[in-house]
């Protein structure tokens, strides 16, 4: 009897030792979802394939109010992305974009690498990235897919002042805290002021958009730095701001000392069915006096300051489905050349007048990731720029 009791005690002890191991390795097999399998390992190794594909696109129709003959239909963007997970902490993010359907010497299209970087998680809240990546500036630049902004086209401020989709090559760090603070900091390539074309209007349409390099044999003598902070610790509220600054002379004769800076601050608040947003952005180019002296008489001189801001309100109708109908209204004021430096002759070029645009529209996300849009843009000074737009966007 004593032997049996001893054996029983030994078995109990062995069972007690085995139980925690079994608890770790024997997870449930809940086969309710078709794709679910048993979770056999407690380590967070992704079950997803290492290679993933994603993308987005925009097809649009635009009809200028003053010049109906200039109406155009276009595959504005066709973007394919590929991600590859090298290990649980290291991955590639890449996107290739075709603008305006066909890219050739006789067509208006472009083929661009929009992102190509390696991200490595340093820990659960911080990661490093190196390569060609988006600059964390404003509300749209990192969230530029058509399902994520209001209007057929991106707003004027985040096109003319912040040159979305704005990317640079370099290294960066990003952190996310449990209290809702995200920070980004990095060193990247910057702008090349020697690209300024005083004979075209490109610099007036977007000063920084005309001198960005997009890591296409980018001149890299002068580097830039960025810092961005964003707070989302209160549900429905997003507050943020960023600054980007660096040299823009790139060692070119006559451009020594030229620098570019751009800062912005933004807010987005989504109380109930409302989606409210506001953004202010301001850019500065220094060391332009001597350059503009040399360009005197040309159509487009280099501005010293440029700025823009907008307020936007949208209301998401529920309609009993998760794909709401959303009317929106946006008021924008921007100026791509609000001041010029004084020239040696003692006079400064006349700054441009502020432009004010009111955009109203409707969008309908009729399936997850697919959106139809219609809007009308009205500039307060005359009919130039007024237009009617239709758009179809998707993201997967």
């Amino acid at each position, binding site marked *: 009897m004593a032997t049996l009791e001893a054996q029983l005690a030994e078995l109990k002890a062995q069972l007690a030792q085995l139980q925690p191991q079994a608890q770790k390795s024997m997870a449930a097999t809940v086969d309710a979802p078709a794709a679910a399998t048993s979770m056999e390992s407690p*380590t*967070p190794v992704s079950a997803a394939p290492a290679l993933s594909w*994603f993308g987005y696109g925009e097809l649009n129709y635009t009809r200028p109010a003053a010049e109906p003959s200039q109406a155009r239909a276009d595959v504005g963007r066709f973007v394919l992305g590929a991600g590859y997970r090298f290990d649980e902490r290291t991955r590639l993010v890449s996107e290739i974009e075709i603008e305006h359907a066909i890219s050739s010497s006789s067509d208006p299209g472009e083929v661009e690498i929009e992102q190509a970087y390696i991200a490595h998680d340093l820990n659960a809240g*911080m990661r490093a990235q190196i390569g060609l990546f988006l600059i964390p500036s404003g509300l749209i630049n990192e969230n530029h897919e058509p399902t994520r902004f209001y209007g057929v086209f991106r707003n004027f401020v985040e096109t003319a002042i912040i040159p979305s989709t704005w990317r640079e090559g370099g290294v960066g760090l990003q952190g*996310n805290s449990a209290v809702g603070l995200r920070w980004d900091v990095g060193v990247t390539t910057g702008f090349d002021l020697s690209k300024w074309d005083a004979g075209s209007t490109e610099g007036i349409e977007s000063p920084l958009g005309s001198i960005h390099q997009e890591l296409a044999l980018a001149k890299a003598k002068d580097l830039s730095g960025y*810092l961005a902070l964003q707070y989302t610790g209160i549900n429905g509220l997003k507050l943020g701001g960023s600054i980007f600054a660096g040299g823009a002379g790139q060692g070119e004769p006559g451009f020594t000392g030229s620098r570019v800076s751009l800062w912005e601050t933004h807010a987005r608040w989504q109380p109930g069915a409302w989606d409210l947003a506001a953004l202010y952005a301001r850019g500065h180019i220094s060391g332009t006096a001597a350059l503009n002296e040399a360009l005197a008489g040309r159509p487009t001189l280099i501005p010293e300051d440029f700025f823009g801001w907008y307020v936007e309100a949208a209301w998401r109708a529920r309609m009993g489905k998760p794909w709401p109908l959303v009317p929106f209204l946006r008021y924008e004021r921007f100026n791509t050349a609000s001041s010029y430096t004084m020239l040696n002759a003692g006079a400064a070029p006349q700054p441009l007048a502020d432009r004010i645009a009111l955009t109203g529209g409707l969008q309908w996300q009729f399936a997850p990731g697919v959106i139809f849009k219609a809007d009308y843009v009205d500039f307060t000074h005359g009919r130039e720029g007024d237009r009617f737009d239709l758009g179809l966007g998707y993201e997967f």
Partner: protein
Amino acid sequence: MSRRPQGLAFVGAGMAVLAPGGSVVAAEYLSLEAAQRAVFPEGTRFEPVALSLTTAQRQAVDALAGPQPPRGRLGAWRVEGASGSVGFFFADEVLGRQDFIDYALGINSDGSLRTPEIMAYRESHGGEVRNLAWRSQFAQRRDGTRLRASIDIKNIAGATLSCEHLTGGIRYLRALWQIALNTVPQAAP
């Protein structure tokens, strides 16, 4: 006029102020055991649950859960405390945009939810779903039909897909509990 912003200088200063060990979450990926402790700190025993659904149960879960994102592995554990059963623990995976988000959820015996924990987040954008304020929106909710992204659960602008898919996944787990794991008749929420 010549201003010279000290770009590289503020980068260095920012790194010094915001280095890990400050406000940044410095934890590694959350292991299964750590997630169990975080969701059910009073749990003394986590017993794996093997469960197969009938066709009728599967249809009922699908109807309750609504549209779902692509899913990965799913595990369930019955949780015992010092005074008996306290609920169920789930470890689940839903697609963010490119890769799975691993998360853990606790459902109390009365059907109310506990704050979910993010076990692993692998996307390039949208990591804000780790915010405690966002995750806390799920705590104490009992009505599985009131788990609608952007309506009942507020969205984080810039992390929309992650918010929507995690909310969908949690809604699925609540439906699974209601149809297959709940043994006590529930009062109206």
